[in-house]
């Protein structure tokens, strides 16, 4: 999941002004708590609420309140599956074929029953090449899904998903996938309501279809979309048709659009938010003293990294890439710049997977870095061309980028220029490979290391480095086909070694979720993927 949308913006300041100006509609924390309303800072304005179009963390937070997949979020542990639309499920011996039994009382918010045909229809929409879903790789483990998406197959009935009756869904996978239930929690696997999607916009393959707007949205989750005020908030209310409605204890949630982290901080301090999206790094030290009970720093399954454009010299030279990676002092970045107890990243896969080994595949070694750079023909940085380090406009990215550039200058004698771009322009530059080095972040989509490593296969839509390695692609494919957990991990371990030896990306640190939360909010547990089951939250 793309991360970094806590964009610091003028928009945020304006939003705050607007909010202050007409804040009459939004209750303050005391009143909201009494009325069972959660006020949540949610970062930037979501681009869409269509689960098959969305790509960001911001959107995920809202969509998961509105739509429920086969498997739902567990209240405390992101590794465990929780029954969602599927009441129970069965897998064959090697976890390559799954059968889901849908509960009879699952309803869309307009009263229609949720059927297995809705899922098949949604997956066909997602996989149809003309639709252009960015997250389509999430569905590739399904048999023939990749071939259908590439247009090699035109008959969707050959794809490994079928609905023998209204409440049974059968899914065949390309290989044994024990972590398949975890994948199903991702919104790429969420269903949409076919009649609603078809009723609006230009047909079912219209990516910008207005079916997601207020008054039209039909979901099957614990909440329904009540109000969408652009650049202000999205308000959802408890769904009367949700099958587990008795469990839902909140009456409403406001997802507040606040891009500016400092504005968010001030709104929290003045009692206008229950939970913040994040905390500005310069405030962490002070908050540790003044609000120790409310400040949370929790491991988050994600990696902050720099990606090289390996199609542009001199970054096509692995020695240059490794030199830059080795000259980076990650301890200093974490302890002096990001300040949030993050873990320095010496490999790409973050900690948190029990049986996956923690290794140091890149070291802070300026000596070797200088030698590698000299071998590449840039001794002491001489003759190194003028190159740019790209980041999206946000104070904390700016800070890290400046620190890193200064380290490269000090250790290697290379002068990098910084270049910041607004979020959308930045995403465009990444996907067009129009950069030299670019900052990026990746949050795991499910609980398996492959969610971090499959990014770097040749055709992955999120690769964006131009890097390609046949052996690496083969290992990732192997990982999806391996019969045992050991074989699966063995393939991934070798793949990660290749990745770190070739270094198309420099891991910097592993994320922490850093936020403020008021003591009234209950049922909010630390979770590695930050998947929030809103139906278990309550206020006291």
């Amino acid at each position, binding site marked *: 999941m793309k991360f970094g949308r806590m964009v610091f913006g003028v928009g945020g300041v304006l939003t705050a002004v607007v909010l202050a100006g007409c804040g009459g509609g939004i209750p303050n924390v005391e009143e909201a708590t009494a009325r069972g309303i959660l006020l949540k800072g949610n970062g930037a304005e979501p681009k869409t609420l269509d689960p098959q179009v969305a790509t960001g963390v911001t959107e995920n937070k809202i969509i998961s309140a509105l739509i429920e997949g086969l498997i739902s979020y567990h209240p405390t542990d992101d590794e465990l599956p929780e029954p969602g639309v599927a009441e129970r499920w069965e897998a064959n011996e090697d976890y390559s074929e799954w059968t889901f039994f849908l509960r009879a009382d699952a309803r869309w918010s307009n009263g229609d029953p949720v059927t297995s045909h809705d899922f098949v229809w949604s997956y066909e929409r997602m996989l149809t090449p003309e639709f252009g879903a960015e997250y389509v790789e999430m569905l590739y483990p399904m048999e023939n899904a990749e071939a259908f998406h590439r247009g090699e197959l035109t008959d969707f009935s050959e794809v490994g998903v079928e609905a023998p009756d209204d409440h049974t869904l059968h899914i065949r996978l390309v290989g044994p996938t024990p972590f398949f239930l975890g994948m199903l929690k991702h919104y790429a696997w969420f269903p949409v309501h076919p009649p609603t999607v078809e009723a609006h916009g230009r047909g079912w393959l219209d990516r910008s279809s207005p079916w997601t707007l207020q008054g039209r949205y039909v979901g099957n989750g614990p909440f329904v979309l009540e109000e969408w005020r652009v650049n202000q908030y999205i308000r959802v209310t408890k769904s009367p048709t949700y099958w587990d409605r008795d469990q839902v204890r909140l009456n409403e949630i406001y997802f507040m659009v606040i891009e500016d982290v400092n504005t968010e901080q001030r709104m929290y301090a003045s009692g206008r938010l229950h939970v913040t999206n994040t905390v500005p790094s310069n405030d962490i030290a002070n908050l540790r003293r003044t609000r120790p009970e409310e400040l949370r720093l929790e491991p988050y399954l994600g990696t902050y990294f720099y990606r090289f454009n390996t199609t542009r010299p001199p970054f096509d030279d692995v020695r240059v890439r490794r030199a830059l990676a080795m000259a980076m002092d990650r301890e200093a970045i974490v302890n*002096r710049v990001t300040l949030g107890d993050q873990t320095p990243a010496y490999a790409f896969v973050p900690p948190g997977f029990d049986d996956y080994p923690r290794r140091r595949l890149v070291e802070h070694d300026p000596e070797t870095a200088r030698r590698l750079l000299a071998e590449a023909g840039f001794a002491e940085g001489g003759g190194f061309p003028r190159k740019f380090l790209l980041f999206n406009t946000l104070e904390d990215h700016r800070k890290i980028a*400046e620190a890193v550039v200064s380290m490269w200058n000090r250790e290697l004698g290379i002068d990098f220029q910084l270049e910041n771009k607004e979020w959308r322009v930045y995403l465009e530059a990444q996907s067009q490979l129009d950069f030299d080095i670019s900052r990026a972040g990746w949050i795991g989509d499910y609980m398996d290391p492959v969610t971090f490593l499959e990014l770097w296969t040749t055709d992955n839509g999120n690769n964006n480095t131009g890097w390609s390695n046949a052996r690496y692609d083969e290992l990732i494919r192997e990982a999806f086909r391996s019969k045992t957990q050991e074989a699966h991990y063995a393939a991934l371990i070798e793949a990660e070694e290749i990745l770190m030896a070739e270094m198309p990306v420099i891991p910097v640190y592993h994320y922490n979720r850093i936020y403020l939360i008021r003591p009234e909010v209950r049922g909010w547990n630390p979770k590695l993927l930050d998947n929030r089951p809103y139906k278990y939250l309550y206020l006291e």
Partner: protein
Amino acid sequence: MAFPKNISPDAKRLPDLSIDPEQIEEGSSLWQDAWARLRKNKLSLFSFWTLIVIAVVCFAGPLLTPYSYVEQDLERTLQGPSWQHWFGTDDLGRDQLTRVLVGGRVSLTVGIIATCVSLLIGVTYGAAAAYAGGKAEAVMMRMVDILYAMPFTIFVILLMTIFERSLLLLFIAIGAVEWLTMARIVHGQVKSLKEQEFIEAAVSLGYGTRRILFRHLIPNVLGVVTVYATLTVPSVMLLESFLSFLGLGVQPPQPSWGSLIKLGADNIQLFPHLLVIPAFFFSLTLFCLNFLGDGLRDALDPKSSKD
């Protein structure tokens, strides 16, 4: 036909018009007059010298501080003012004094260059349009209206993507946007001036359009233009910080007052010195520019009395 040398035999009866050479007032240019008048305005003069001092300090100061504006010391981040760092350090442990001075360079340069560009285009365009009159005037001023309607950011983004990104281009781009109001002001002024007798006189004397425009009309609008120009400088400086923020202007680690103030505003509760110091310099500059503009308006008005 030749005039007779001696027109009248009674010439001797005319009063003696010869003037004591001591009393001859030396011909003085507009600028000499203006300077003389400006010198009498204490506040303006003070502002003038303050601006000079700020400019000199900003351009020379960074050479004297023992730090460079990019040198980081991650062990000493966000420190308050001390003997080592007079203005404290920022969030990467860089010397704030050096950064404020270097930031001043950028902000002052952008203010001056962009304002000059806007003056050059705006005054020429506005005066030419008003003087031309008729259809040409209508077309030229409707062009200004159309450009007004165009979102400024899009225009700058366009410029930045077409051309290589550079600081100079940024300066010119801002100036190329800011000239619109200037053109309108000059247009209005010139339109009323050109109906006056001294222009008619110039026309009847057979002076060319260019001479009338630049020697007769434009000096008469300089007062208004100067005041507006001094107001343009601060708005241009603000624009620069806005653009830098969008990633189209000054790129870090290069500071500008706008970006320093933004960083300070983010940390206002815990580290107020990061905001107060650059904001002080910025406001001081703006105040001085306003007072100076005020004084210049009085000084440059050719209609104000000479004594």
